[in-house]
């Protein structure tokens, strides 16, 4: 059990939560509250709000997000390799280059297919 090693980190969490809770509580308790019909109207930069509450996003967001996940996972693999770069030697370099080559083909493919372009 080495969770104790991370005690400072958890203390930071606790402090952050405590401060946020404190401010919210103080604002709720001390702040004046005079609701009126005018105040509870939706506010949109001064103009009347219009349209549906939730807009549908384009499928482009999905493609971008999934490509991000794929290359994110690639970077996850590269990191431990980089740590062990010297001790793994040429074999490790070749293994990683083989992997990266495949991913590179994927990148070229996505690029040429226009998957990285926003305006199509």
């Amino acid at each position, binding site marked *: 059990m080495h969770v104790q090693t991370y005690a400072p980190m958890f203390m930071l969490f606790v402090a952050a939560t405590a401060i946020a809770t404190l401010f919210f509580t103080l604002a709720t308790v001390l702040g004046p509250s005079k609701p009126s019909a005018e105040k509870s109207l939706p506010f949109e930069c001064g103009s009347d709000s219009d*349209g549906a509450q939730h807009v*549908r996003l384009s499928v482009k967001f999905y493609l971008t997000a999934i490509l991000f996940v794929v290359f*994110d996972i690639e970077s996850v693999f590269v990191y431990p390799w980089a740590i062990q770069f010297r001790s793994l030697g040429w074999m490790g370099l070749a293994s990683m280059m083989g992997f990266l080559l495949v991913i590179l083909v994927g990148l070229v493919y996505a690029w040429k297919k*226009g998957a990285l372009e926003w305006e199509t």
Partner: protein
Amino acid sequence: MTIGQVYFYLCAAVALFGALAAVCAKSPVRAALGLLMMVLAVAGLYLSLDAQFLAAIQLIVYAGAIVVLFVFVLMLLGHTPLVGVGDGSPAARILGATGFGAVALAAMILSARNAEPTNFPAALPAGFGSVGEIGRLMFTQTLVPFELSSALLMVAVVGAVAVSKGEKPVIVAAASVLAPPGAAPKPGESQ
């Protein structure tokens, strides 16, 4: 109770709460946030198992990328509350959930009671869970699955391009970002 046990039960409770929220929440965005809570708590559990790298990856990939992807997909679908979804009767759903839950619970209790960790090392090997040790293992022992997992990543890239590019769907999304606001009211939008 040691501090370790307190920590475990805290993380486990948060994970369970998040998972329940993900399943039970009516609003999909709340469900996604419940999932995020679960992911964070599980990362905390990894930390207590000396798997620091895994905990970090859990945060970067799951909390950072996959939950974000979920939220994107929810926005693609236009997030209407999940009311009346599914044509099964409530009884069938409750029965299914209870049945599966009972099996899962029985599995956990039985595994816990009959734990025979014969093949597990008594002490952790040096450097267990550290980034360097994982890198060494990945490029020596598990090199074959590592290299072949590139095929998995590739099929994901090409598959994503295949289902989201190409010819336009016949039913164009009713209210895309480009459509003028209010042009296409969606069913179930009563506000």
